[in-house]
């Protein structure tokens, strides 16, 4: 049984090399809190996730929604085991397949076929699995003879198709997905959507980050709203989407509204 638990996790990104030029504590509107520590405030860090707890069980389809800089990507990377938290614990049971940008380890000098193998190995497939999946990747990417050429000869769209085809060929247990996963032109986008749907079907657990409440609504069974590295609202997709809309209205009228103030204004939920 795949499951994932975050227990009071905090993630701070240390910022090096700005100590001399960067003065004064600044609270940005949507990003994480910039903090200064140490005797002379010489340690600058950005708090991306703040004391966050979350439990994801087998069969869950969790949507993460929030503004730019709310901590969505950091949370996804934490779930994928890429980052380890500064405080708190992350317990991952099962194999996590992260799907962020394109395929990991893609090299522009290698041919399409060589990249299928390298990326496949990075994604945790065995050579036999890769050999078995190659016809499927060939068919889906529609690259034909191009797969024998170095990927630097590809157009942007072709490269996206290859990366997408490799990345979605996996059999994931816990699928961690960023909505930014590009998919080329309109015809391909439709094909890509069907492929992602099939991929999600195969997964035991889905964690999806998105700006789009419609996407979350169509794919997820529960959701969280993230703001300044904290979970503002947790619940059903409809509840969370409603809160997200309110947050958008509130920040439109008052951009300086802090997370705390918002939390109080929506505590009636």
């Amino acid at each position, binding site marked *: 049984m795949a499951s994932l638990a975050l227990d009071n996790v905090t993630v701070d990104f*240390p910022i090096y090399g700005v100590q001399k030029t960067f003065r004064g504590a600044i609270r940005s509107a949507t990003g994480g809190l910039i903090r200064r520590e140490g005797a002379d405030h010489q340690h600058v860090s950005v708090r991306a996730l703040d004391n966050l707890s979350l439990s994801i069980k087998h069969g869950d389809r969790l949507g993460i929604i929030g503004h730019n800089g709310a901590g969505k990507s950091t949370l996804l*990377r934490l779930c994928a085991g*890429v980052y*380890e938290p500064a405080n708190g614990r992350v317990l991952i049971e099962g194999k996590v397949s992260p799907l962020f940008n394109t395929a*990991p380890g893609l090299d522009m000098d*290698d041919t399409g076929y060589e990249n299928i193998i390298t990326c496949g*190995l*990075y994604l945790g497939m065995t050579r036999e699995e890769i050999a078995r999946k190659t016809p499927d990747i060939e068919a889906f990417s529609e690259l034909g003879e191009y797969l024998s050429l170095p990927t630097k000869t590809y157009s942007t769209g072709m490269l996206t198709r290859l990366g997408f085809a490799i990345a979605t060929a996996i059999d994931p247990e816990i699928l961690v997905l960023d909505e930014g996963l590009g998919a080329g032109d309109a015809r391909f986008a439709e094909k890509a959507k069907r492929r992602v749907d099939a991929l999600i079907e195969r997964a035991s657990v889905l964690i999806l980050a998105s700006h789009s409440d419609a996407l979350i609504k169509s794919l997820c069974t529960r959701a969280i709203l993230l703001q300044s590295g904290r979970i503002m609202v947790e619940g059903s997709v409809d509840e969370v989407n409603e809160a997200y809309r309110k947050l958008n209205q509130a920040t439109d009228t008052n951009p300086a509204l802090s997370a705390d103030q918002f939390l109080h204004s929506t505590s009636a939920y």
Partner: protein
Amino acid sequence: MTPSYSAAIDDVVSGCTNWRMWGRLGWQETKRRYRRTIIGPFWTTLSLSIFIFTLGILWAQLWKQDPKTYLPFLTAGMLAWGMVSTIITEGCSVFVAAEGLIKSLKFSYTLLTCAVVWRNLIVFFHHLVIYVGVMLYADVEVTANTLLVLPGLFFVAVNGLWVTTLLGIMCSRFRDIQQIVGSVLQISMFVTPIFWTPKQLGNRFILYVDLNPLYHYVDIVRSPLMGKAPALLSWEMVAAGTVVGWAVTLFCYSRFRRRLPYWI
């Protein structure tokens, strides 16, 4: 920072045993560097052989050495030094260069250091062509001692792994270290007996040679190639380096491995 020795050891063991992956990474990188060239990796072999032949003959004259003894010494020394120093140099950038990968995937970072060491072994093996030529010219005998090159390479590889891991971590956090290592290596090439023999230095300064760890790592590969057994002192220094090096590396790796994605 609370240490996690089990996570560090697990990273090293799972990385080293995944030879299919690092074997491929190292081999692809070798192919990549010479793509679209006609003689491929033998370009570096060619330039190294020109270097060795011209300077070898010049220095043999200057230092009144017999070319038939000096050239094998210089060639074997240059091959060993090239491997040792390139592993150290590339160790500094091994993690920084893989930023995209480290920030998007959980995997054993040791795969990357294994790939660096493996690629340098590949380079060493195709440079051996020069050495075969020099052996034929200088009538170097192949003896039972020649086989000692295998344990020699093994120890260079085992030590190469901790050096790349340790330097990779340190250089990710402190970017100055890469520059320092570069400068030190440049000087070391002249201070370490590669162009000159320890005998030429005389007994007064021999202690400085014996205390230079790089000399011993070079020597466990160079002496067998010349048909001689490495000195016992060299084996002892390398053994000590292996133990101390891995101890320090595991000490650091168990504490800072988890910070690596934040540093690069």
